[in-house]
């Protein structure tokens, strides 16, 4: 006798043990008790719930990405605007070159006046106004320029 034949014969003589101590009516009642507490089968179609959270999740991710992108653009725009305003402020506060040259010249004149008043009270420049001084300085510059050339 080969093994397969012996096995089949053995299994036929030694059946599977039956359910021991299980009340059939109670078994059915327990199943039906759970069935009736649940939803009706018609209301539970095959995995139709799956696409809902999947689309919902995708939409939420897209919305979050959009919010982040918009936020980043806004921050960048605000920074650019702040930089432009700062540049405008600096430009507005900075004096033109000619005015700066004039201010520096007047400062020098003031310094000379302070030193000169103590050194020589009979200086020829005594009694000259600022405008006269400026004219003289320009004439001196022009004289030096023509002499050097």
């Amino acid at each position: 006798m080969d093994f397969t034949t012996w096995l089949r014969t053995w299994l036929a003589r030694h059946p599977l043990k039956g359910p021991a101590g299980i009340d059939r009516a109670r078994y059915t009642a327990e199943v039906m008790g759970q069935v009736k507490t649940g939803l009706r089968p018609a209301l539970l179609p095959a995995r139709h719930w799956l696409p809902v959270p999947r689309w919902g999740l995708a939409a939420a991710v897209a919305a979050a990405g959009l919010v982040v992108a918009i936020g980043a653009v806004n921050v960048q725009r605000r920074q650019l605007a702040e930089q432009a305003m700062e540049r405008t402020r600096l430009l507005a506060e900075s004096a033109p070159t000619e005015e700066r040259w004039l201010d520096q010249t007047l400062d020098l004149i003031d310094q000379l006046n302070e030193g000169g008043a103590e050194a020589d009270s009979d200086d020829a420049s005594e009694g000259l106004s600022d405008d006269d001084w400026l004219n003289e300085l320009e004439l001196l510059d022009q004289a030096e320029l023509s002499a050097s050339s």
Partner: protein
Amino acid sequence: MSGRDAQAIQAVLQGDVDRFAELVDRYQDHALRVAFSFLGNHEDAKDVSQEAFIHAYRSLGQFRGGAKFSTWLYRIVVNLCKDACKRRARRPLVVAGVGGTDAVSDEDIGLFVEVEDPAADPARQASRRELSRRLTDAIGALPMNQRSAFLLHHVHGLPLDEVAAIMQCRVGTVKSHVFRATQHLRVALDPWLMQEGI
């Protein structure tokens, strides 16, 4: 699918939930036996088979009637048994009581009814009981696909095409699983087979 099953399913789907009890009554013994053959314990088999009926009820809208209701139900039972075996992998219940720590009654040891032969001497009877337990052990040690194919075909007597429908594979694959399972069992039982003169 039988006409009675189809009528009951149609009624349930139309709202007559109580008609589902007909299906539970009709198939509970089969479902219990299939679950017991995988789990080796009647209490666990009862829980899993009841869970299978509840799954079947909740998914009844998906049942198209292409196969028998019993085939569809057994597929659910087998899948739940596989899940249960995975969860309890550290203490396989098919071999409950053999080297385990759980308190298991003698009735729960082994899957098969032990047939006493009054003519056989006590040593021979003890050897046959041991063979029965070793067979239970060896079936429990089979890979899950081989175990499923072997139990459904050889122990429950289901035809190969129905086993294939339950396991959702081809008939040829089922044949292969059954063949390999038989080879494994032969190797595992070799010492006892020699005593039996096989």
